[in-house]
């Protein structure tokens, strides 16, 4: 994998920020976009912008072909059995909410349980909180191990015969933990529950095979994997989706509309009410082409290497606390940390003055921050375009930050 060649495909990286070359270490929040994605969006709007599934005219057919072609690419990308099981949505949040409302309101009732973990992103907590409140179900949390991993024993203890839904992130956006989804899915199924996977931090960085995982739902976002914002995917097993009611009603998703009654289109369109996210889906298709050309295995290997390199260099800084699994091979390409008593905001501002973009705050995981016993943390996250040099600059910036704050105090 030639990182310099890859970097040339990301025009945004070639710029100065605050007088320094940009070092972008916030890809877990959103990734940068390769030229091919930007060009694909440009071609769509210049050449064949049109609504899909309704036109007799040529542009409409072209747009429909490309939109449905993108669905085929997603199907192959996650190894879904059928394009009927690939639904385009705004993002992971919308996808999880759709399951919570569309499946949950029907199947979950008082006395039932929904199981999540202490490391979840808010988008995989609040939809279930709301569902629990509406139905009288109990929301249960699998506790975390000291190093921020899950033990299957704890999962077995938390999931019971009353559990209807288990929903867990595949990769933690804070700890970098890679969860054993396949094994957890098996535990969920043994207890008669369905398994929902928040794949937002997994799909961009590693090969995902939904058939191998055997999960019932898998949700991810396009913008974290080189695609545009506003496009995401909900994969769901056909037999469950067929029995599930849509949560959005209107154009595009209907079959027959009468004055009092209507019927829905077949899968996947019954869940895509309104004019779909045409440009977004086509852009996501281009992002998938790009990632597959580089190779997901290569990307994963590169990010493991960067995580190991970063953890090694960063842990040499005095008063550095790094959260999550200590073994870099057991974690994804991000490092969340705190440096001495410098508040993460202050840290991020000083690094920004050096052209280095990192994330500071609670990373949409307030319950996890509470578990870590901190109010916020700083996070550097890597993608295929990051280099060892980026990390060297980060480490130099952190050393400078520490000196700076010891000077001004």
């Amino acid at each position: 994998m030639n990182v310099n060649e890859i970097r040339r495909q990301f025009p945004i990286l070639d710029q100065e920020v605050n007088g320094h070359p940009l070092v972008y270490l916030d890809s877990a929040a959103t990734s940068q976009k390769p030229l091919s994605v930007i060009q694909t969006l440009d071609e769509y709007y210049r050449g064949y912008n049109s609504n899909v599934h309704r036109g007799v005219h040529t542009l409409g057919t072209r747009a429909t072909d490309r939109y449905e072609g993108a669905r085929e690419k997603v199907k192959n990308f996650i190894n879904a059995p059928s394009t009927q099981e690939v639904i385009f949505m705004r993002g992971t949040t919308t996808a999880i909410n759709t399951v919570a409302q569309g499946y949950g309101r029907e199947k979950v009732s008082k006395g039932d349980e929904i199981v999540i973990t202490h490391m979840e992103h808010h988008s995989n907590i609040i939809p279930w909180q709301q569902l629990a409140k509406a139905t009288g179900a109990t929301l249960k949390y699998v506790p975390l191990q000291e190093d921020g991993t899950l033990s299957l024993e704890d999962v077995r203890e938390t999931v019971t015969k009353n559990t209807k839904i288990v929903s867990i992130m595949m990769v933690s956006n804070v700890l970098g933990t890679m969860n054993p989804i396949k094994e957890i899915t098996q535990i969920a199924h043994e207890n008669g529950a369905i398994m929902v996977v928040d794949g937002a931090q997994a799909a961009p960085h590693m090969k995902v095979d939904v058939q191998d995982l055997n999960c019932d739902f898998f949700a991810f976002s396009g913008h974290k994997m080189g695609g545009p914002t506003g496009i995401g995917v909900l994969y769901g097993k056909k037999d469950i989706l067929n029995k599930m009611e849509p949560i959005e009603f209107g154009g595009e998703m209907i079959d027959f509309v009468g004055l009092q009654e209507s019927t829905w289109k077949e899968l996947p369109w019954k869940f895509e009410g309104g004019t779909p996210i045409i440009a977004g889906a086509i852009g996501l298709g281009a992002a998938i082409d790009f990632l597959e050309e580089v190779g997901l295995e290569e990307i994963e290997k590169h990010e493991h290497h960067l995580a190991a390199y970063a953890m090694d260099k960063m842990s040499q800084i005095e008063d550095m606390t790094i959260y999550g699994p200590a073994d870099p091979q057991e974690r994804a390409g991000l490092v969340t940390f705190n440096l001495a008593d410098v508040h993460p905001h202050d840290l991020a501002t000083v690094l920004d003055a050096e052209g280095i973009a990192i994330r500071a705050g609670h990373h949409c995981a307030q319950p996890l921050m509470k578990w870590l016993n901190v109010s916020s943390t700083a996070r550097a996250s890597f993608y295929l375009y990051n280099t060892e040099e980026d990390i060297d600059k980060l480490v130099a910036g952190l050393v400078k930050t520490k000196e700076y704050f010891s000077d001004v105090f």
Partner: protein
Amino acid sequence: MSFNNLDTLYRQVIMDHYKNPRNKGAIEDGSVTIDMNNPTCGDRIHLSLDVENGIVKQAKFDGEGCSISMASASMMTQAVKGQEVDTALKMSGIFSDMMLGKEYDDSIDLGDIEALQGVAKFPARIKCATLAWKAMEKGIDQNDS
């Protein structure tokens, strides 16, 4: 160590308020308490005010956050303590103008608060600085109603 542009943000007096916050704590029998947070970053403040006969007799805060948010809270309590409610609100307006980089009314002596002027050049940090002031405004509003 030189980060010249940063020195306009992290002034000595700000770091002093951060490290040695004034009026830290809670008023036992305060007339009004306010909890406010900045949901995007997790900063939070618990402010208690003792307002009597239109005068802010006492102001104390507790909370957690970055140097800018905590220093601003410390300075704010110092500034409004002993002031008439109207003056305190006027100060908040002046502070808001200062943060937006607007010309501001300098007829009221803001003391240490002027050290926060540099925040205006760091748009991502303005919300940190204004949190305590928003809490104070809310507290006075609650007290009135």
